[in-house]
Each structure stands twice: as C-alpha cells, then as structure tokens.
C-alpha cells in the first residue's frame, strides 16, 4: 500500500513540476498580464532542443516598456530574488537592469531567472526575462557560453 502511494505521489509531483513558473512573482509577466502578449516576443523551447545546454525548459519574454512598467517588472524580479538561493543583480539609478537569479530547485531540477533591462532610443527600456529549468549548474552555463 505504501509503495503504491509513493508511486502515485511521485507521478503527481513529476507532472506538477511542469508548472513551476506559477509560484514566481514574475509569473504574470510570462502570462502576458503585465504587457499583453501581442506586444512581446515570447519564446518557448522544451525538451531535446535544450539538451545541449543541460536544460529542459526555456521560456523568454522580451518587450519594450516605459520606466513605470519597467519598475513594476523589476520589482517582481527583485521579489523573486529575495527568496532565491542566490542572486546577482545590478542597478542603474533605482532601476534593476540586470538579474541572474538562481531559484530554489524543484526536486533535482535547477531553476534560473534571468532579467535584463536595456535603455532604448525612446526613453524606455527593452526588457528580457528568461526562465530556465534543467540540470545545469550556474558554472556549467557560464563555462558553456564563455567558450563560444
């Protein structure tokens, strides 16, 4: 009986992992609730395509925002950084312009949140947020891209 229950729980947990983003403060940004999806570039890659990077899931959103919206998004990322395992952040003035956040793992799955805000010609910001899942450590990712 115990074995059956353990198997069933494992099954549920493994499928539940697919919704890991949901717990994040910046989840509404990925959902298109802060900036409508029609004003964003949304990329999603899952599975074999990411295996090269020891990752299993990639989701990014990129969009232009005014300073007020940029601050709102930055606040959400900062809130996630507060509860994360580690976070490297950089600010320009009061605005968070860079964040590399190592979120708490989900079982054996490592999770990262990458954030960048770059100034645009129109006194606004080009914001990129990437959510990553996989087995790659931060060192793995750095060494993979440093070689290129």
């Amino acid at each position, binding site marked *: 009986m115990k074995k059956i229950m353990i198997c069933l729980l494992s099954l549920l947990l493994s499928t539940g992992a697919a919704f890991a983003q949901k717990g994040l403060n910046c989840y509404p940004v990925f959902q298109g609730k802060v900036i409508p999806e029609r004003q964003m570039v949304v990329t999603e890659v*899952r599975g074999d395509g990411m295996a090269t990077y020891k990752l299993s899931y990639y989701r990014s959103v990129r969009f232009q925002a005014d300073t007020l919206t940029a601050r709102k998004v930055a606040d959400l990322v900062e809130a996630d950084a507060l509860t994360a395992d580690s976070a490297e952040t950089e600010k320009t003035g009061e605005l968070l312009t860079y964040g590399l956040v190592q979120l708490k793992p989900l079982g054996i799955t490592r999770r990262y949140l990458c954030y960048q805000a*770059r100034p645009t010609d129109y006194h606004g910001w080009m914001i990129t947020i990437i959510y990553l899942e996989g087995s790659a450590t931060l060192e793995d990712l750095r060494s993979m891209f440093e070689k290129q």
Partner: protein
Amino acid sequence: MNDKEKYLELMQRYFDAETSPEEEKELALYAASTDDPAFRELRGVLGYLSIGLQKKAKKGRTVRFYSIVAAASVAIVTAIGISLLNQDHNSCIRYTYGNKEDDETLIMESVETSLADFFAGKTPAESNLFELFER
C-alpha cells in the same frame, strides 16, 4: 454429567449469551464433531455466523481493493490531465508580437544569443555602455 449433557448446558448458556469466548470456541468444536440432532440448531447458528464473518472479511478486502483502485485512478487521471495540458515535451515556438513562428533553427539561434548574453561574462553595465556608444 456426560459430554452431551455438558454441551447441552453450555449450548443453553450460549443462547442466553452467558458463555465466554473460550467456551463458545469449545462448544463450536463439539457441535462440528457430532451429528447429534440436539445440536442441529446450534450448528445452523454457528454456520450462519461463520459465513457472515467470511462475507464481512471479504467485504473488507473488497472495499480496500476498490479504495486503492479509486485512488490510483484519480492519480492517473490527474497526471494524464496535467501531462495533456503540458503536452509538447519537445516544442520550439516563438510568438513575435502575436505572430507564431516555428523555424527551429532561427529560434534556437536567438535562444543561444540570449543565453550567451546572460552567461558569457559580459557585464550588463558594459553592454549598456557599448550600446550607448554605438548610437
């Protein structure tokens, strides 16, 4: 007092609900070992009770079995549901301002560029400065 008389008395006490579990067991063994018609009624009652117990035990096992089957079914259906919601285990897709694109090569190139942007070691302050000077 011979055996029969002893067990007849015990039987009487059994029907009056005055026997101990040990006595009932002894009486049941005796009733099962004799064909004496005086104990026919007792055999009938004991037989009925034993069938009842077997049925109860079987019913208990059946209920437990169906509970496990029900729990397993719920878990499997939930897992399948979640999996279906998250169907594409290998997907590569991009929506550029609402327009769907599925050119895997192009998408993977942009993924690599974005990842390199974060992990290649170039600090964002540097990137921003380069961009400002390029303008």
